[in-house]
């Protein structure tokens, strides 16, 4: 008897676009293949070149390095609607996706993402393969929020958004009427209602979706699993004043907050102000340190894509980098294999995101390499990093508070070692795969039982 087949659908392939979710999805596919119980197939949205070109004339499909079970799906000639997340010409679903599903005949379809592909693809799975269970991993808040799924409002100084409503969403996007936002939600929920099990990588994110309208019993909390890494060599006793940032240079990631904090910590800047500001609420250790120039905290920024940000943000970041030349080094783009070396160079990993976050992969990475994390005290970040157990929290979007916390981290003797000791074991991909295989098995059994009843 052949193995049941599980189809992973993803919005991109790491070979074309190395985003966190794409990298994770491919790792999951490989882990599932290794585990051996299921035969995984990976289908990612991907076109040739930047012009959304097809791989061959007359088909939307292409291969990845000649592999048998990995496919790329181009949407050449199709238009993706960013409000509803749908491809407007339904032939994409009723012909291209339909034919693929019939050819591959998966027993389970596990959506990793539907951006660029459209929520309608879920309906097409139900149409073509009515009995096949559908799993959907919720990576961020796209269904809830038009603003890149970040739930950061465009109004009131980019305040964090607690919940959607037609009127609130219209405030963020004055060109889209409240009625359109109502229709958008109904449209997305119509398609998501066909999903059997949702997976949420954080309890916080799960809660948000339950509030939004997905039945609680349908969403399970399941952390992303990571490939194991070799532990870094112990570099002995020393000051722990090296900080690292890993991620895109984007506004919602809060890079500007971190650079502002570094300005306050600069040797000739207003470090004194920062510590003064920090003292009332900070622990006594912060003020006791010797602020000699030789012992200044330093930040290494690892990341790219600044050129993709709005011009005003690029200028802001550039001017911050100029002003913090002495204590900030822009390292630039990195690939996952660089990580051991880069992590070795830092003591702390800072996650200054100004959005709720889903389950930041960078926290898992930091923990895997034994680096305590300093993060904004909100959302999924506080769920993953416990204050004063394995990291430190600061007030979101508050450079002064971040500077205070960083000063403390750099100067408080023994703190780093203490927090490093509190880092939990990282959830491995093997355990994750085992859990997911259990979910798939359960769904297939449920399907068989359902068929038996009728």
């Amino acid at each position, binding site marked *: 008897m052949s193995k049941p087949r599980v189809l992973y659908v993803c919005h991109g392939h790491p070979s074309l676009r190395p985003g966190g979710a794409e990298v994770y999805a491919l790792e999951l596919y490989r882990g599932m293949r290794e585990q051996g119980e299921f035969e995984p197939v990976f289908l990612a949205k991907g076109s040739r070149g930047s012009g959304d070109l097809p791989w061959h004339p007359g088909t939307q499909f292409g291969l990845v390095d000649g592999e048998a079970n990995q496919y790329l799906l181009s949407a050449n000639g199709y238009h993706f609607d960013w409000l509803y997340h749908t491809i407007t010409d*339904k032939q994409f679903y009723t012909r291209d996706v339909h034919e693929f599903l019939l050819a591959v005949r998966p027993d389970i379809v596990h959506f990793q993402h539907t951006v660029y592909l459209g929520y309608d693809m879920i309906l097409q799975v139900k149409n073509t393969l009515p009995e096949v269970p559908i799993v959907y991993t919720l990576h961020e808040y796209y269904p809830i929020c038009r603003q890149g799924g970040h739930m950061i409002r465009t109004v009131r100084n980019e305040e964090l958004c607690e919940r959607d409503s037609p009127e609130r969403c219209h405030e963020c996007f004055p060109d889209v009427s409240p009625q359109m936002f*109502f229709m958008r939600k109904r449209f997305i929920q119509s398609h998501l209602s066909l999903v059997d099990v949702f997976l949420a990588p954080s309890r916080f994110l799960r809660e948000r979706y339950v509030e939004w309208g997905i039945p609680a019993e349908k969403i399970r909390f399941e952390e992303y699993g990571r490939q194991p890494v070799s532990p870094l060599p112990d570099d002995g006793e020393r000051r722990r004043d090296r900080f690292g940032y890993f991620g895109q240079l984007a506004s919602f990631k809060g890079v500007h907050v971190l650079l502002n904090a570094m300005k306050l910590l600069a040797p000739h800047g207003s470090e004194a102000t920062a510590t003064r500001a920090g003292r009332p609420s900070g622990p006594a250790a912060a003020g006791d340190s010797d602020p000699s120039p030789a012992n200044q905290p330093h930040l290494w920024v690892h990341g790219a894509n600044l050129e993709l940000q709005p011009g005003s943000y690029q200028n802001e970041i550039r001017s911050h980098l100029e002003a913090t030349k002495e204590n900030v080094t822009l390292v630039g783009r990195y690939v996952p294999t660089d990580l051991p070396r880069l992590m070795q160079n830092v003591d702390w990993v800072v996650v200054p995101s100004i959005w709720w976050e889903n389950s930041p992969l960078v926290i898992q990475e930091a923990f895997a390499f034994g680096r305590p994390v300093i993060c904004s005290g909100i959302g999924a970040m506080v769920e993953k990093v416990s204050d004063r157990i394995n990291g430190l929290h600061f007030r979101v979007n508050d450079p002064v508070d971040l500077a205070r916390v960083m000063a403390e981290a750099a100067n408080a003797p023994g703190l780093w070692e203490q927090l490093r000791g509190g880092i939990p074991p990282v959830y491995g991909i093997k355990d994750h795969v085992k859990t997911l295989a259990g979910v798939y098995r359960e769904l297939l059994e449920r399907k068989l039982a359902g068929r038996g009843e009728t």
Partner: protein
Amino acid sequence: VKTKKQERHSPDGKGHRSGIVNGRPAHGAGAPGRIEHLTWLSDGLLLVAGSVAIGGASKLSASVILRGEVVGAEAEGTFYDAAQDRPDGVRGALFVVRCDSGALTGKIPEGLALGAGRAGAKFGPAQLPAKLDDLSTLLRQTVAPLDAEARSRVLQFLVSATRDRLCGSSGLRTSRALFRAREALRERLPLAEIGRDTPLAGHVDAFAAVGPSSFYIRGWLASTAGPLTRVTAVSPEGCRAELLDRLFHRHRPDVNAFFAVSEDGGIPKLGFGCYFEADAPSHLTEGWLIEAANACGDEIEVVVPDPVRDLVTVRNTLLADVSWDPDDRALLVDHVAPAVKQLQRQRGPARIKKVAQYGTPPPDPAVSIIIPLYGRIDFVEQQMAQFVHDAEISQADVVYVLDSPELSQTAFALAPQLAQLYRVPFRLAGLESNVGYSEATNAGASLAHGRLLLLLNSDILPDRPGWLGRMVAFHDATPEIGALGPKLLYEDDSIQHAGLFFYREAQSGLWCNNHYYKGLHRTLPPANVTRAVPGVTGACMMISLELYRQLGGLSGQYVQGDYEDSDLCLRLAEAGRENWYLADVELYHLEGQSYPSQVRRLVAGFNRWLQDHQWSPFIERVMLKYSSNIRVVEPERPARAKHT
């Protein structure tokens, strides 16, 4: 009247009782006179000038020989010069010859017979010119030298004799010929100049073609030298319409201020608005004039702007002129309302160009869901995304009616894709032209297969499945039911509709439509009571097809999707039916997304007046019957005091 008309065609003023001048018998030796000029005005329309002994205003039977073929025709003639002392009675005359066929237009006639028997005359090649003239040559050599009054009579004759040919396919060519004649013959008056010292001035602000021969004009005329004695609209074809007695006069404070005029009786109303019907259709854009004269003998002509012909723009122009000042009511009643009525008639009835079936139609549907589409078709996808989860919809007969022909290609391309993805069977009917909400709905109803109709707007999304079956069950269980409507909600869960009632607006005194509990929360207890109501909205209305047909469907006299529903409910009530509100069925109505609110206000104002105009006493009776329903809206202060 007839005598008068005939007199106008006899320059000698004596008139000809028979309309036909004594002539020599047609069968005599040679014809009485000869034909000197011939020209084709348009297809099958010949203008003839000659010196003949027959003529007059009456219609004569006629025939023309063209290429050896006898073409039947009728003719109408007029003498243009005074009777001379010739014993044979021969005089200069013009004839318009209307051939039965336009096939040989442009050919040179080889023979012409005007009239029959003793009163007729026949002209052979010897009495006919060998070539055709052009129109201006013919006019220059015959009637152009006449005095102004005679030329004016000739123009009136031309337009009256060619009136039939201003309709139909050759109408535009006829119009152009008449315009050339008018320009060659008309007496030009001084052009209106706007200056403080001019004794007579005027301006036309708006001019709209309501129908082929109906027009609406708005402007002002200021005479500082005695009252106006004549205001005449002249079409490019030369058709004249006397407006002075018809004009609706209204205040134009800006014009008053400029001319600093006042009267003993107060401030004169210098502005005017007027809907008028011309005697003949007009097709041309340029050339309309207003001629005006006052008691002191001042005369002017005012250039009229090109008529607006786009029906929606015309309608909005008309509605924008309605002021709700009671003093201006006559403008509405005598001018705007008849014009709008004419416009509405222009649009209908709907002609279905194409009906496409998508998916397998349900075998025996109980309900036909009729959904008109106007301006936007993206709602179809949104409805499909909801209908897909409701098996009852796939058992119903869903009919979309596209009332935006310009979107036809897009809609018929999108529909099969949506049908394939969502697998909800439906039909799409495309209309030939935009006819408006009521006619589109009626067209959809004419396609219905179900015994019940559900009129549904495209911007309605059900809250949850099962709503249609509940409506059917309630409808069938309620004797003498008229229309049935559910609760409709806005996107923020406030009530849009929980039944419809009428209230008398304080300012205008008109009965207006309103929805119970509009804007309040969907859980409001009184909104959750199923009950009989004065009416329900057409946005989601169930009614038996038979009853709908008996009443003739939605009325076409209201403008653009407003008040047709309450009008139907009133007709149902008049027929002894009861309209019901069903509280436990809830749908969302995302109303008014793309409709400019300014236009909406104009349209609603007109419709409200029209409904009130037709139904006021009956609405009063209906509201008396349902007054207990109003009391829920208004606090019962005195009643409560009495009870305690």
